[in-house]
């Protein structure tokens, strides 16, 4: 669809020609993230600061278009994909970093890449703790919007635990700052509301992040098992032993094989499951904890235990883990990824059910799991060009979500709801729950100008004007 000429003109006047793109090719290439849904983009803008963001918000409103924020587009839930024709705000050019070394904090632009921040602060012995597997590519704005986690969130917590303040532009174009340097801000904790709101409350323009000291010692190890249940039992016992590993990750055999093709790390491809464990802290504690993990693993039949000999081998192990999603296309051109959470002690059951669901639907499933906190990432691999495949995959995905909830878990661990998981929200939330979320959202964005149709299913606002809609009407 050609963009309305005067919309583009108005945007250009505010941002300069460099800051606006609206040709069919731009519209197409920005119409999707790393998930499977495609949307429709009218114009793409690249503001450089909050004032320009505010201008874009107002111009879009004047022309009747909603706004969708986009960082690097590594989201897996269609969060940065417009559900109706929209103006995109791309944050990549807002990438300032101002470090306050004494207070171990930094004000960062939303377009700063997660790993770049940790690299820039490495010489100060500091890093940004949340480390999504996409950390080399994803932006802090995206991390804040999705409250992203990562392997190290087992011990460190997710993004919300590392954000002190957020500056954002609301639907009226106002620039607000919520939170502050205090870890527990006075008044309502709006900061924690904005973190995880997936761009539905406003566009984040600056973030005050906490920086974490690099641990004095780190040990990273791979443990291979000939049975998935042995690996799962190891996870349960490690956690039960009272240690909180910095990370505890699991990959099943199809996943390990795909990854090995890329990283050539001599991974144990014959194993049914591989655990990647990391402990950090003071030298003595690290040694003791590593010993515990290794002996628990051995007791549960670990066929191989490999301790990273140096930083290079350690990074290679992590590269293997963090390449997992991308490595899939070697097997089939598309994947559909879920992000459910189950209680840790039901891991074996959950995996058996996932394999059974995939078998029933004649699909290949590959698993990579934040085992320490029970966050599953089953990936159904398929060829989207085969008619009907996507539907089969989505139905399998629904079964996986239902199973996770049945086991006492939930819909999403860290990737967010976006468009792709929106209609499953009703599996975990009651009509009253959803209404509360919708009201909260409308406090900031009454007319749903930001990311309309994302996160909350249509009709969430079921008590509008005192009118109640029958439960299930919008399921």
């Amino acid at each position: 669809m050609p963009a309305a000429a005067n919309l583009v003109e108005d945007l250009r006047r505010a941002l300069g020609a460099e800051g606006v793109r609206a040709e069919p090719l731009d519209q197409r290439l920005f119409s999707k993230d790393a998930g499977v849904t495609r949307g429709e983009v009218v114009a793409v803008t690249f503001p450089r600061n909050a004032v320009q963001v505010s201008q874009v918000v107002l111009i879009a409103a004047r022309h009747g278009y909603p706004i969708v924020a986009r960082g690097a587009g590594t989201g897996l839930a269609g969060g940065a994909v417009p559900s109706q024709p929209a103006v995109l705000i791309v944050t990549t050019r807002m990438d300032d970093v101002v470090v306050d070394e004494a207070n171990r904090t930094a004000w960062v632009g939303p377009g700063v890449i997660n790993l770049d921040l940790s690299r820039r602060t490495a010489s100060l012995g500091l890093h940004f703790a949340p480390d999504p597997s996409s950390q080399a590519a994803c932006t802090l704005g995206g991390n804040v919007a999705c409250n992203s986690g990562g392997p190290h969130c087992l011990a460190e917590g997710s993004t919300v635990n590392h954000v002190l303040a957020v500056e954002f532009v609301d639907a009226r174009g106002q620039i607000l700052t919520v939170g502050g340097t205090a870890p527990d801000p006075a008044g309502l904790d709006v900061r924690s509301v904005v973190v995880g709101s997936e761009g539905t409350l406003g566009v984040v323009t600056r973030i005050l992040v906490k920086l974490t000291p690099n641990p004095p010692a780190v040990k990273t190890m791979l443990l291979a098992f000939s049975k998935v249940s042995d690996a799962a039992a190891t996870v349960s016992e490690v956690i039960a032993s009272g240690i909180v590993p910095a990370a505890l990750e699991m990959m099943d055999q199809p996943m390990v094989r795909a990854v090995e093709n890329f990283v050539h790390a001599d991974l144990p491809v014959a194993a049914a499951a591989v655990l990647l464990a990391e402990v950090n802290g003071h030298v003595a504690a690290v040694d003791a904890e590593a010993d515990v993990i290794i002996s628990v693993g051995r007791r549960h039949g670990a066929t191989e235990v490999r301790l990273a000999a140096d930083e290079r081998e350690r990074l290679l192990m992590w590269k293997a883990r963090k390449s997992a999603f991308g490595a899939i296309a070697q097997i089939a051109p598309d994947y559909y990824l879920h992000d459910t959470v189950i209680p840790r002690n039901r891991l074996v059951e959950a995996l058996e059910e996932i394999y059974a669901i995939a078998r029933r639907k004649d699909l290949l499933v590959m698993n990579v799991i934040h085992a320490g906190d029970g966050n599953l990432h089953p990936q159904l691999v398929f060829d989207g060009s085969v008619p009907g495949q996507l539907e089969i995959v989505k139905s399998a995905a629904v079964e996986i979500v239902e199973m996770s909830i049945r086991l006492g878990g939930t819909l999403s661990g860290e990737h967010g709801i976006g468009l792709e998981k929106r209609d499953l929200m009703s599996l975990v939330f009651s009509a009253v729950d959803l209404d509360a979320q919708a009201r909260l959202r409308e406090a900031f964005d009454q007319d749903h100008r930001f990311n309309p149709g994302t996160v909350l299913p249509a009709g969430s606002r079921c008590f509008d004007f005192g009118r109640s809609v029958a439960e299930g009407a919008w399921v």
Partner: protein
Amino acid sequence: MTVWQTKWAPTPRELAACVECGLCLPHCPTFRLTGDETASPRGRLNAMSAVAAGTLPLDSAFAEVMEFCLQCRACEAACPSLVRFGRVMEGARAEVAAAFPREGRLGRRVAGHWLESPRAVGVATFGAALAQRIGGRHWFPRRLRVGLTGLRRLPLRRRSIRGRDVGAGSDPVATVGLLAGCVMDPWFAAVHEETIGVLVSAGYRVVVPDDQTCCGALAAHDGAADDAARLAATNVQAFAGVDLVVANAAGCSAHLAGYGHVVEAGTELASRAIDATVLVARAIGAGRLPQLPSNGRRAAIQDPCHLRHAQRVVDEPRSILRAAGFEVVEIDPDGLCCGAAGTYSVVRPDTSFELGERKAAQVRAAAVDLVASANPGCEIQLRAHLGSGVRVAHPIEIYAEALHSARDHDLAGSG
């Protein structure tokens, strides 16, 4: 029904390999400069898919997106899905050339025809050598000036290593065929001489087949795929008799290693192709070349994209420098392109300049007086952006010089 016109077009299978995860984005220099998806590897692949599907036209906007790419292949090294980006982009460039035969014709003519002619390169070399001597750089268009600034001092008379055959006498480890190259031969004669010397010291017989030609990398990158295939076919014949095919320019060795995509008979040659730094590093590792004691100096290493990203060769140039006695200083954890990128510096001087300045700043921050680069284009770019304070040289050349001075020292000591 398809819009593609050539047999080089990206295949559906090649394009389907991309799962759009975005992990390649931060590794892409043009994405880093712009923050723009359309200047990213994923964007470029998506544009190809959309054109293949008929969703987008093969128009000038598409051509622009393809031509902005440096073909540095950093995305390829970062891609867990093993997308063969370099090959796919060469295919896309061939399509752009077919769709817009008039645009960029001069560049393709140069890459596809002139470079294979030692005479044509000789004439250009003579012109540049004259300009160096009488200071006529400003006669040249701006886009050529950076290159002229960064060139080594060129000879006025043409000489070539073609036809050489050295080291046959002493029961060689293997026979290597050295690629003379289109511009390496007249412009980097010293690198060739030292490469031959070091390889012979390592126990190889080195032959430089007379009937070889330009490897064709520049032609392939610029969309002159048919010319690239013709050049490759000539080299497949010329190098039929040797055990290994060696190039000391990363762009050439990478292209030789990908000959399988260029000509049918190319796979076999590709299996014998190897960059000179790899061969030398192996010889040092095997004790066939000496490890010299530390000289207390620091040298920075600049990774040519077509060594680091296209061939994943990272350790070898470093171990050569260490063997030459240097402490190796890293300048860039990502190995972002220096902006030389074959003919890119001429076609898109602005982007090239910006990347060149970034790289130069990294070298300056490392506070070294020597930087090693195993590719002629990078060398020229670095020298142009660094000025005269820092020496830029090929790692093998640096190692060879260290060997010479160690020998002189020994001779002096024993004499």
